[in-house]
């Protein structure tokens, strides 16, 4: 029901929205919760476990009960707090956790079986038989107990992540936060003022407070206008600071487009990381409920929320409101309701000495012992010294006192301390370095006190960053004392709710203590109290007070559970913004990418690079035919392959050769300009890190190549060796991977092909195997290397990347006229397996130079990284698994990488394992399947028949162990 003339809503802008399929109208400025209340909708959901009817309880992000699903085109967002969701035209929401409908929910029978569903029930009841848990019990329980549902589809909405920087981050925009921001802003500091609400002002929007003789909200408008006009201030509304992290970094979640009917390209949410030199926590306080019988009935609300709906949204939460309190705040509620013309049914004050201050019925020393009404509150039972009585009311405003919103101060493991005079925990100073709690968040509950405290906190923050605080006098405001006499639970037989979101009652907490889960952390896990979306904001202190009572301890000794980030729920989509699908990692494209795609080549990811798998031609029915053709092309004619993705590192300096000697196992200082050498690099632990060729371009100038996937690793290794181990050596290096487009030209006709593009023909005598030098390609300065990864007479030609696309097209076209063509990764792999050449399938991080048969490359004449470790016992000898070749006895029997090897007579079990296959392919050249494998003492076992078992693919093949070089073992072709 709306109250005329009240509220900060725009009554000229009516908004249509739907809830559970019914149409309603609200106003601009409403939340879904205020609009539902205004329309008289009291029941908005069913509870988590017992499926009890629930309504709106609070007016903030702590809401435990009014959780709904918001439906948009292509989106279904569960557990949206109706108190946070702003109303917009066309908003569509529905209640959750009910079937078939909110009014008639079949699972509400859970409530009838409540005696069986107490805390710990799952663990006790569903223990046996063990196998039933996963298959039967858990799925059934999960279906019955839940909070909303997901669409099961990808979330394709736009989300954003962003960074912000400031001198001072002020968290919260109530009286304390506004004063802190104002002081820091006037001092000239860079200020970010973050407010989780859509509008700044905090409690000034919800209560009728006077500041300097003006309504509090008018005063706030004035301060905000001044702040908004200052270039050093950034006002961030709808931004909840969710976590405090090291070095003054704070996480914050901003709702950017969720409140708009037409968000356009605005992101739904933005997850901020704010780096602040100092921070002021002025997050206010949260009102806490009192546990009494059936206190979860729709219509039972927090008193502060009832005031907020009245003053901010012009909504009466009921026609006749009763107030249940243990503190002096009740008066404010009663006065404001009366002034607005709403009947105050009674004030039930648990304090025997409660003062009578207004024109309403007051029950002193009284308690609410029960609530009644079918789908919402109709009447309450009240007990005082005169006995039990019935009070008719459709809304009960409850205030059990206030808990400072100190959560952020606990994010670095600090514990709050108990202040008995306000019956609340307060933060300790220095809990988070550079974070100053003030105002209600620090336990200061009067408006005047908050204004003063905000100034104090900002002053301390400014001092810490060496800025002078300007002199500002706090404005005048109400400075009443906060009078509270703790009341946590009203004794009684019926269930009294503590945690509304997870359906945890006072009885559950007592049961936990009885079952010896007496530590607050154990109680939390036993009962699940505080583990729902509200993370115990409403229930924590109440629950531990009940636990304290049940265990005969005080509240301070019982302590709190740990508050961890995030303060409010953060969608994973916001934290992972931009990272879905292709956004997961950058894509790296070679200069030949377009040409390869045009030729129909399927592109596969290799590292971050995209490389052609094979180049299909008309009539080829599967990839293997294309691959076989490409292999034949290279073996018989000529093939072209983009090898630009290999890491290329330019190394210069008078100690460059010495440096190479140190990082490679073999010697490079003897390499002459114009020559290339294959090198092997070990890690410090003696295992192989990478292999590749290094060319000597000129004196003191080398070009190292690395494996594609190891380029970054090797660069990092070189940096480490230079900076940490050999800092005095004069050597400089930089990656040139991206600078050069490089193509392998391989096959017996490779020289002919090159001669057709080079400005000067190659002189065979000047270009033996492993030669390199400068060449000119159509006038472009390039480099040529006579190296081979196929065992054929082959070259790699490099040109500056801008010419890569043109040269690749030219080379492939020419190769095709010669009967050859481009080849892809599949053919490249077959060619190298045929030759027993290594990739990271073999040098996978657990193999040594000895294992791969390259121990002779470990120079005895010099030191190198990994030398000592490679000689350790156990890294050499017959016990090691050594690289071998595998040929199936039946050449057509397919073998696959990952299969394991066993003696013919042994069972195919782990303890009989003889080794494993690292690479396999069908060799078109040798018309046989081939494999590379590691076999225990393999080099001494050539000729032996071994049993290959592929447990994954369920195949078994008998193979002969061979030398790993299957093709042209003498290397005649490569030198020819």
């Amino acid at each position, binding site marked *: 029901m709306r109250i005329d003339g009240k509220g900060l809503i725009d009554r000229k802008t009516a908004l249509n929205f739907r809830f559970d399929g019914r149409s309603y109208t609200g106003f601009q400025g409403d939340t879904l919760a205020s609009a539902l209340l205004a329309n008289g909708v009291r029941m908005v959901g069913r509870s988590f476990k017992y499926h009890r009817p629930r309504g709106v309880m609070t007016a903030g992000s702590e809401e435990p009960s009014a959780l709904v699903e918001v439906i948009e085109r292509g989106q279904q967002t569960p557990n949206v707090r109706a108190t946070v969701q702003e109303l917009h035209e066309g908003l569509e929401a529905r209640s959750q956790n009910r079937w078939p409908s909110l009014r008639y929910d079949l699972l509400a029978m859970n409530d009838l079986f409540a005696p069986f569903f107490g805390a710990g029930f799952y663990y006790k009841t569903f223990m046996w038989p063990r196998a039933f848990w996963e298959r039967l019990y858990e799925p059934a329980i999960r279906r019955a107990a839940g909070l909303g549902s997901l669409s099961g589809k990808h979330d394709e909405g736009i989300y954003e992540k962003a960074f912000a920087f400031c001198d001072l981050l002020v968290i919260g925009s109530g009286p304390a936060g506004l004063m802190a921001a104002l002081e820091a802003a006037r001092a000239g500091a860079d200020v970010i003022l973050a407010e989780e609400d859509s509008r700044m002002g905090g409690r000034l929007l919800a209560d009728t407070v006077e500041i300097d003789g003006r309504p509090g909200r008018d005063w706030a408008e004035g301060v905000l206008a001044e702040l908004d006009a200052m270039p050093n201030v950034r006002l961030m509304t709808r931004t909840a600071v969710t976590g405090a992290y090291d070095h003054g970094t704070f996480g914050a979640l901003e709702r950017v487009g969720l409140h708009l009917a037409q968000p356009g390209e605005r992101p739904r949410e933005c997850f901020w990381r704010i780096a602040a030199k100092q921070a002021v926590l002025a997050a206010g306080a949260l009102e806490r409920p009192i546990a009494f019988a059936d206190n979860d009935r729709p219509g039972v609300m927090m008193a502060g929320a009832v005031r907020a709906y009245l003053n901010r949204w012009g909504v009466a939460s009921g026609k006749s409101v009763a107030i249940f309190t243990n503190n002096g705040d009740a008066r404010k509620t009663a006065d404001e309701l009366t002034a607005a013309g709403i009947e105050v049914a009674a004030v039930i004050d648990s304090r025997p000495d409660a003062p009578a201050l207004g024109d309403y019925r007051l029950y002193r020393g009284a308690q609410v012992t029960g609530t009644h009404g079918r789908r919402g509150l109709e009447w309450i039972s009240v007990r005082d010294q005169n006995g039990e009585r019935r009070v008719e009311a459709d809304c009960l405003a409850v205030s059990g006192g206030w808990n400072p919103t100190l959560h952020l101060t606990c994010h670095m493991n600090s514990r709050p301390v108990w202040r008995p005079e306000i019956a609340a925990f307060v933060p300790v100073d220095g809990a988070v370095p550079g974070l100053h709690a003030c105002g209600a968040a620090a336990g200061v509950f009067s408006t005047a006190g908050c204004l003063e405290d905000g100034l104090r906190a900002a002053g301390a923050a400014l001092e810490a960053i060496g800025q002078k605080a300007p002199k500002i006098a706090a404005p005048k405001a109400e400075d009443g004392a906060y009078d509270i006499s703790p009341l946590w639970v009203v004794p009684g037989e019926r269930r009294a709710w503590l945690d509304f979101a997870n359906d945890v009652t006072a009885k559950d907490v007592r049961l936990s203590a009885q079952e010896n889960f007496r530590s607050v952390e154990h109680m939390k896990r036993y009962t699940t109290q505080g583990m729902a979306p509200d993370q115990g904001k409403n229930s924590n202190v109440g629950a531990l007070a009940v636990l304290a009572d049940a265990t005969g301890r005080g509240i301070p000794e019982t302590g709190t559970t740990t508050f961890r980030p995030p303060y409010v729920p953060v969608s994973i989509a916001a934290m992972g913004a931009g990272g879905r699908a292709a956004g997961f990692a950058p894509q790296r494209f070679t200069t030949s990418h377009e040409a390869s795609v045009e030729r129909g080549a399927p592109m596969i990811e290799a590292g971050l690079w995209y490389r052609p798998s094979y180049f299909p031609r008309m009539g080829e029915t599967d990839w293997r035919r294309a691959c076989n053709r490409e292999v034949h092309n290279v073996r018989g004619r000529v093939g072209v392959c983009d090898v630009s993705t290999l890491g290329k590192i330019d190394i210069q300096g008078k100690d460059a050769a010495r440096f190479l000697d140190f990082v490679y196992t073999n010697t490079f200082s003897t390499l002459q300009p114009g020559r290339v050498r294959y090198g092997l690099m070990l890690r410090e632990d003696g295992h192989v890190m990478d292999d590749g060729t290094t060319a000597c371009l000129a004196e003191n100038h080398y070009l190292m190549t690395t494996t594609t996937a190891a380029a970054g690793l090797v660069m990092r290794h070189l940096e480490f060796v230079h900076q940490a181990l050999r800092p005095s050596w004069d050597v400089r290096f*930089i990656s040139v991977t991206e600078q050069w487009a490089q193509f392998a030209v391989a096959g017996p006709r490779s020289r002919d092909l090159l001669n057709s593009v080079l400005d000067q023909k190659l002189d065979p005598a000047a270009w033996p195997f492993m030669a390199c030098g400068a060449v000119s390609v159509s006038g472009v300065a390039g480099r040529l290397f006579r190296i081979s990864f196929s065992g054929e007479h082959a070259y790699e030609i490099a040109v500056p990347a801008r010419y890569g696309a043109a040269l690749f097209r030219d080379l492939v076209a020419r190769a095709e006229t010669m009967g050859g063509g481009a080849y892809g990764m599949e053919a490249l792999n077959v060619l190298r397996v045929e030759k027993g050449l290594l990739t990271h399938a073999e040098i996978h991080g657990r193999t040594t130079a000895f294992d791969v048969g390259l121990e002779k490359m470990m120079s005895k004449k010099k030191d190198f990284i990994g030398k000592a470790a490679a000689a350790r016992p156990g890294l050499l000898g017959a016990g090691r698994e050594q690289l071998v070749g595998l040929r199936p006895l039946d050449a057509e029997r397919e073998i696959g990488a990952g299969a394991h090897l066993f003696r013919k007579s042994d069972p195919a079990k782990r303890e009989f394992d003889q080794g494993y296959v690292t690479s396999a392919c069908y060799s078109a050249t040798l018309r046989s399947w081939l494999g590379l494998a590691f076999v225990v003492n393999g080099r001494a076992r050539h000729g032996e028949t071994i049993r290959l078992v592929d447990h994954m693919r369920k195949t078994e093949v008998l193979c002969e162990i061979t030398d790993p070089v299957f093709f042209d073992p003498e290397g005649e072709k490569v030198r020819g």
Partner: protein
Amino acid sequence: MAELLATSPLEGLVPLSAGPFTLSDAGVARITSVAPFAGKEKAVSAALKKAHGLAFPAPNTVISKGEARIVWTGRGQAFLIGADPAPLAGIAALTDQSDGWAVLRLDGPEAERVLARKVAVDLRPAVFGEGAVVRTALGHMMSVILRAGAGFEIFVFRSMAHTAVHEIGEAMRAVAARG
């Protein structure tokens, strides 16, 4: 003999605009990495001064003179841009990097708002003004970012130009949409 045509890594990707922001090819022609050899820092600075009116830059700074610029890019390393590196031969490791990078230019009011979506460094003018450069992550990509008037120049690996343009474009649209 056919002529080899040069292809820009940004071909077909830019210019791009969203609201008040534009992303374009910065048109950087020649980039040479300069890494002074041991003990040659002063000699390199002197040679740069003589040839181009520049000096070897301090960390996170750019020195410009006319068309020539030298940009700090890392420990003992800078990129000489738009100038002939020949005078430095023998006293610094010189490596042609002209083809290794895609260089973008981002313009628009408070363009740092766009980069704040991708870069964890404070790029506001008061902190990161004319002559400032940083080598940092742009999303998941390594980059060199420098202040250029009201906007920025952004160097990314040539192979990652697609992803860089896509991601910066996304950020431009999201910021522009906020109005």
